[in-house]
Each structure stands twice: as structure tokens, then as C-alpha cells.
């Protein structure tokens, strides 16, 4: 008996993903500036949503406070680049470990809360970060601060080169984050996570160290979210406590994307992001009405199709883009469950 | 009393998901009768009571109570129709005192002989402990409270799910000794039991379930030890 991950559809899926990755890597050569910006924005949402999905859909930790780490990453970047003259791109990669380090004591505190109270606890933490950031006057205090031109120019000689750099950075970060999530889910820790997702009590009685895994996932998610946060604010060139720690921008949309795309499935956030951006193009300029609509759609999806759009597709067609399921292969070359 | 039996169950199938718990079960209870349903663990006795009370619905077959079909009636309408269940394991409300548990049984205010005073008359020990939280009672006392709670709804049919479970024999005998007072008012009773001796003593009519099917039924006095053992164990 062996355990195999791939199915026919997932082999096709992997091939398609590889092709897409190559195509996207070459985007600077076929896309214009606006397209690159749009794609980069999509990548950041895919990354944020995938990380939130790992936290909520797999580890069962529903956070409405991930904006804490988005903002933290942003402020770390600004602090390093402006106050310590660190290369901004390097600063992004430092923001990750810093986020993880801070996430540890935070986790110890808020893990004392369960379920929805945990969720609100994460929100309180984000609020605390926001209030603390407003007190830091060297980084603009309550009104925020812009990245000096010298820092920006130091990134690359020409503006076009900078645009390309930022684009590839977004793509690289997203691919690394997705690959890490994928590798985690494929490992035996991933099996434990899926067990926790399906039935936490049963998982615990099978001897899985649930608390430890949740803690590790929280730290890991903070790591990735902080890096993305640093990138986002490098892209924006300006930071303020309200934008850095905005619930609407960094949590509401992320949650809606994941719910509509499909919680608990790795393809869900990607599908959700594509839908979200496609709709946004059509409903551009509606502002708060768009957010309202997304909220309503998310509620409808949560009640009638809780597995999201991708979940429905999987159920109807049995597709699987990325090989994550485990299939038991019996001897004599007979296929096990599909 | 109305023509025909008070409760008529015809060819009922019931499932928990994919698992079939009842296979074509038929059962009748006449007005004022005491019917015992016996069987081993997992034979489907509790499932049958849940179907009657509306906590579950059969996927096939019919349940007639009085003259109306109650096959798919939701649980909260059971008491309105006159069916009360004493659940397996007592299941008193832990946040409520003994008296509050009894009062909530009578919440729906159906006319009838059973009042708080009468329940206290039937089970004096409950009167002594009326202000205590329900979990503070012993197992036997909780069982009495659970029966009293069901009686407060003045049902026409009382369903008792394994009232002897987990109780000392002397306590069981004590509780069963009061059943005649309950039935004497014209109430019909279905007793689900693993304790065959008590069930046979209390009942007019006995049904024996084995793996979801009626293996044997008849008047209590007509059934011999051998017949019952055979039906109970499926030999």
C-alpha cells in the first residue's frame, strides 16, 4: 500500500499552474504598467487570503485582526528604511521574522480565548498596534508619513526597473508563501491540520498536539502577513495608522475573498481573488456599496454554499488543481478511492 | 375513548444518516394501556420513542396519534398533541432548580389532573428539594423529577426511555411502584426498558425489538421466559 497525492486532474492542474507561473514571470515583457500594478495587487490579496485560509480554514483560528501584522510589516519597513538606512527590499524580508517574533507573545495571550471571543481578541490586538503606531512620532504619529525619495531611488536606477522589481517581488513573495503553505499541507503536519479542520476533538484524542500546531500556524501566518504588509506599503510609498491597520482593506476583503472562493481549500483564495477583482473592475467607483455587496454575497455563500465556489466545483467535477489529497493505493495496481 | 388505538405506528423505517435503525416497525398502544418495549442495546428502542416524540422523523411508514398523523410533526408540537417524553438519561435542565424544571414542564398549560402539588404528592422527596439546582439531586431523584416534568404537561401518552438506567434496584422498584398512580388517571404509557422484569410486571402488552425489527409482541401474561429470550437475543 502506498499513499499517492496526484490524480489525473491534479497532474493537469500542476502543469497549468507551472505554465501560468512562467507566463506571469514574463509579464513585464507583455504587460503595461497598469496591468503589472493590477497583477501585483492581486498577488498580495492571494497571499493574504491564502494565509488567512491556513489560519481559519485549516487551523480553525478565525482571526479578524490580521491587519495587525499587515500594518506591523509596513511600519517595520518604514522604520528600517528611514531610520536605519536598510535597503527596502531587504527590509521586507526582515519584516517577516519581526512579525513572527511579536506574534509569539500575542498568541500566548489571545489563545486563552476561544471561538468568536478569540476573533474579537485578535481585533483588540490590531487596535492596540494601531494606537501604539499613532504614538510613534518619528514615523508620523497619527497622520502618517511618506517614504523619502532617496529611499525609493535607491531601489533601482530607473522607474521602469523599479516597477519591474516590485512586480517580481510581489510574484516571488506570493509564490514562496503559496509553496510554503502547500508544502506544509503535504507534510504530516498538514495531515494533522486537516484532521483539526475536520474534527478538532477527534484530532486531539488521536494524540495530535493541537495547541502546538495552532501556535506554529499562527506564527507562520504572522511571518507571511508581515512580509506582504511590508511590500504593500513599499508599493504605496506612504503609511499611516488608519491605512496600515484598516479592517476593511486587510481583513474584510480578505475574508470575503476566501469565503466566496472556498475556505479550507488551497485553491479557494485564488479563485476568490480572481472573482473579486473581476467584479471590482465592473463595479469600479461604487466604494462602500461594493463592500456592502461583497458582504451580502459572502453571507449568502456562507449559508448556501459554505464550501465556496471552488468547493462546489470540486464536488460537482471532482477537480483538484494542486495535488493535496491522499489516495490510498492498494497492491496490484488497482486505483484506490478517487 | 376514540375508536381504534391511541397510537398506531405502521411499518416505520428510521435512519441515522446512512445507518438504518428501524425496519418496518409496527406498534399499537390503546388508551390507558401500558406497553413495554424491550430489547438489547442498539435494538432501536430509543429511536422509536424519538420518532413518536418528533425528535426524529421516519423515512417511511406512518405514525397516527388520536386520529391525526404525527409522522412529521416537529418536536415542539408533541406536547400540544399530548405526547410527553421522559428522555434517556433524565436530561433535566442543569441551569434550573427542581421546581423550575417541573414548572417548565407545565409551561404550555394543558388542562389535566397533574399540577405541581400533585407531582409533589407523588414524589414527596422532590418537594423537600424543590429549590435545589437539578444536578444536586441523586440519580433516582432526578428520574422522579424528569417523570414529574413530563407529567406537568398533562399528556395523553407518556414515553419513558430507560428510567431504570444507572439506578439501584431498590430505587427502580420505588419508582415503578408509583406507576399505577400515573396510569390510573387514564394516561397511556410506553416503557422502554433493558430491565425486563420490571417492564413485564408493569405492562399489559410487550414488544421486543431486535436489531431494529419487532421480533415478538403479545400480552405480557402470554409471553414465556423462553420466547422472550429467543426474541431478545435473536436466537
Amino acid at each position, binding site marked *: 500500500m502506498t499513499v499517492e497525492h496526484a490524480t489525473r486532474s491534479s497532474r493537469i492542474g500542476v502543469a497549468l499552474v507551472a505554465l501560468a507561473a512562467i507566463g506571469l514571470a514574463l509579464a513585464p515583457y507583455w504587460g503595461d504598467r497598469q496591468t503589472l500594478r493590477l497583477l501585483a495587487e492581486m498577488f498580495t490579496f492571494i497571499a493574504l487570503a491564502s494565509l488567512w485560509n491556513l489560519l481559519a480554514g485549516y487551523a480553525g483560528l478565525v482571526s479578524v485582526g490580521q491587519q495587525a501584522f499587515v500594518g506591523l510589516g509596513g511600519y517595520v519597513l518604514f522604520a528600517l528604511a528611514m531610520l536605519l538606512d536598510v535597503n527596502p527590499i531587504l527590509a521586507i524580508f526582515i519584516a517577516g521574522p519581526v512579525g513572527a517574533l511579536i506574534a509569539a507573545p500575542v498568541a500566548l495571550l489571545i489563545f486563552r480565548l476561544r471561538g468568536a471571543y478569540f476573533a474579537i481578541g485578535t481585533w483588540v490586538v490590531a487596535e492596540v498596534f494601531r494606537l501604539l503606531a499613532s504614538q510613534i512620532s518619528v514615523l508620523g504619529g497619527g497622520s502618517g508619513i511618506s517614504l523619502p525619495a532617496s529611499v525609493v531611488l535607491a531601489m533601482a536606477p530607473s522607474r521602469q526597473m523599479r516597477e519591474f522589481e516590485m512586480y517580481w517581488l510581489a510574484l516571488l513573495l506570493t509564490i514562496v508563501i503559496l509553496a510554503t503553505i502547500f508544502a506544509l499541507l503535504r507534510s504530516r503536519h498538514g495531515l494533522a491540520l486537516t484532521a483539526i479542520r475536520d474534527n478538532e476533538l477527534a484530532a486531539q484524542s488521536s494524540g495530535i498536539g493541537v495547541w502546538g500546531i495552532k501556535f506554529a500556524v499562527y506564527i507562520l501566518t504572522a511571518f507571511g502577513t508581515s512580509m506582504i504588509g511590508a511590500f504593500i506599503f513599499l508599493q504605496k510609498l506612504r503609511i499611516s495608522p488608519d491605512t496600515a491597520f484598516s479592517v476593511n482593506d486587510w481583513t474584510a476583503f480578505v475574508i470575503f475573498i476566501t469565503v466566496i472562493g472556498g475556505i479550507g481549500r488551497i485553491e479557494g483564495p485564488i479563485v476568490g481573488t480572481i472573482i473579486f477583482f473581476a467584479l471590482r473592475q465592473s463595479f469600479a467607483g461604487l466604494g462602500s456599496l461594493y463592500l456592502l455587496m461583497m458582504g451580502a454575497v459572502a453571507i449568502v455563500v*456562507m449559508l448556501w454554499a459554505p464550501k465556496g465556489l471552488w468547493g462546489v466545483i470540486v464536488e460537482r467535477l471532482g477537480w483538484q488543481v494542486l495535488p493535496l489529497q491522499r489516495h490510498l493505493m492498494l497492491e496490484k495496481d488497482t486505483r484506490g478511492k478517487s | 375513548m376514540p375508536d381504534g388505538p391511541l397510537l398506531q405506528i405502521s411499518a416505520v423505517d428510521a435512519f441515522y444518516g446512512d445507518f438504518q435503525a428501524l425496519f418496518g416497525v409496527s406498534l399499537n398502544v390503546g388508551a390507558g394501556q401500558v406497553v413495554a418495549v424491550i430489547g438489547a442495546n442498539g435494538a432501536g428502542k430509543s429511536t422509536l420513542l424519538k420518532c413518536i416524540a418528533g425528535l426524529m422523523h421516519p423515512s417511511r411508514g406512518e405514525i397516527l396519534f388520536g386520529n391525526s398523523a404525527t409522522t412529521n410533526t416537529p418536536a415542539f408540537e408533541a406536547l400540544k398533541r399530548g405526547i410527553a417524553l421522559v428522555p434517556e438519561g433524565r436530561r433535566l435542565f442543569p441551569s434550573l432548580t427542581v421546581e423550575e424544571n417541573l414548572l417548565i414542564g407545565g409551561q404550555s398549560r394543558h388542562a389535566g389532573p397533574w399540577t405541581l402539588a400533585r407531582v409533589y404528592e407523588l414524589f414527596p422527596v422532590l418537594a423537600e428539594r424543590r429549590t435545589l439546582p437539578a444536578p444536586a439531586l441523586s440519580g433516582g431523584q432526578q428520574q422522579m423529577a424528569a417523570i414529574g416534568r413530563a407529567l406537568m404537561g398533562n399528556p395523553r401518552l407518556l414515553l419513558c426511555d430507560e428510567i431504570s438506567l444507572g439506578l439501584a434496584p431498590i430505587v427502580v422498584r420505588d419508582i415503578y411502584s408509583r406507576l399505577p398512580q400515573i396510569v390510573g388517571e387514564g394516561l397511556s404509557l410506553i416503557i422502554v426498558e433493558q430491565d425486563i422484569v420490571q417492564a413485564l410486571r408493569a405492562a399489559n402488552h410487550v414488544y421486543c425489538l431486535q436489531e431494529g425489527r419487532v421480533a415478538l409482541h403479545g400480552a405480557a401474561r402470554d409471553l414465556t421466559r423462553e420466547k422472550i429470550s429467543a426474541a431478545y437475543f435473536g436466537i
Partner: protein
Amino acid sequence: MQWLNVILQGVLIGGLYAMFAAGLSLIFGVMRLVNIAHGDLIVLAAYVSLMATQAFGVDPLTSLLLVVPVMALIGYALQRGLLNYTLGDDLLPPLLVTFGLSIIIQNGLLELFTADSRKLQAGAIEIQTFQLAQNLWIGALPLIQFVVAVAVIAGLQLLFYRTALGRALRATSDDQAVAQLMGLDTRHVFAIAMALSLAVIAIAGVFLAVRANFDPAIGPARLIFAFEAVIIGGLGSMWGTLAGGIILGVSQAIGAQIDPGWQLLAGHIVFLTILAVRPQGLFPKVSG
């Protein structure tokens, strides 16, 4: 004397926080639901009061006669029409649906009323003060709010432990299935609980509107205050929630006195400290 004043103001606003928290705590107690839209519903009540005062020319406190039943009705419909379907073992649906609701309410209010800051005028009573001692003043309105808050909490306790409805609520939260056997339609019972919660929210919302400026975005902060009051006080105890609200109010007042920018932070720090050293809260009710 100045510090005494500060603490007094903190205690009084603590009453308002406790009222925010009472509705949240009630719902959690009855159906294990945490309503993320709770704060936004408080703000909604404030806007309903605004509309009532504009439409009928009454003062905010009189508008309560309209706002309370309206919000209660909204609560009943919300529970019966939407939230009942989210209840179950999975914690994701109620959380995400109420989160979605929160966003919808905020943005709906934004569309209808714009982001302009509003405040309701309660008239002369707003500036009226009593002098308790030399240099110790107490505002009439904050005092009224505090007294009403205590009355509301006392009323809820009475309801829960001395009435048939309260019995039904407790029984349903204990054991839904057996409650049904008692003839209780749990869908209806839960909806009544939500209506009750929104009635309390209505009172809190009107007091909020009179006390301070409000706009569509301040909901989440109210949710956080309510939540912190519940956690500090301890789950399951209404009087604990009052204590939690008071402690929160006093912490914020002291923080504000030290530095205005520290008002909210002080409250959060006290909350996090309690979470760290006594996570069950200060006056938790032993689960019954």
C-alpha cells in the same frame, strides 16, 4: 480631588459600557452566539433615534418609545430570518455571517447618512450637574445613564431568574432538544432572546447618541468595549459585566487623564493584563 472626579466619570461611563456588554453577554449565554455586528447595531439604534427625533420632533429620550420596539422587531426578524440558520456546531458560519452583517450595516449607514459626525441634543439635561462635594461634580445625564444601566441589568437578572420567559431561555440554552419536548419552539425562543438583546442595544444606542458624536464607523470600537467589559468581568455573570464595564471606564478615564492619546490604550492594556493573569475574569459565574 481631581482624581476622584476622574474615577467618578470613569464609573459613570462604565455603566454605559456595561449596557453595551449586557446585550452581547445575553446572546452568548442563550445561544453561544457572538454577534460581531453588535457594535454596529448600537450605532444603527443611534441613527434610528436620529430619524425619529427629526421626523417627530421629539427629544432623544422620548424617541426611545419608538427605537426600542423597532430595534426589538429588527432583532426578532434578524434571528428568525438569518442567524438561526447559522447556529450549530461549526463556529465559522455565525462568526462570518455576523462579520458580513457588520460590514453591511456600516456601509449601508454610510450610504444613507454619509460619514458626517452627528450628535443628538437632549436639551437642558445635558449641561445640568450636581455638586456632591467641593470640587466634585456629577453630570445629570451621565448619572441617569448609569442608573438606567444598573436598572437594565437588574431587570435582565429578574427576567432570567424570576419569569417563565427567563426559564424558557435558560432551558433552551441548556438543552435545545429537551426544551422542544416542553413545547418550546426554539426558533422562536432564540428570536425573542435576540429581540431582547436589541432592545437593550436600543437604549445603549440612544444614550451613546446623546453623549458623544457618532458616525457609521464607530461600531467596532463599541463591540470591543462590550467584549472587554464581558471578559474583564467574567463570562456568565451580568453583575460581573457591570463590574467589568466600570473597571474599563475607570481605566480609560485614568489613561485619558495621563495623556489624552492614552485613553483607549489604557483600557486595552487593562484588558490584556486581566487576560494574562486571570483569564476567567474577575467575577466569573461557576457554570451551572
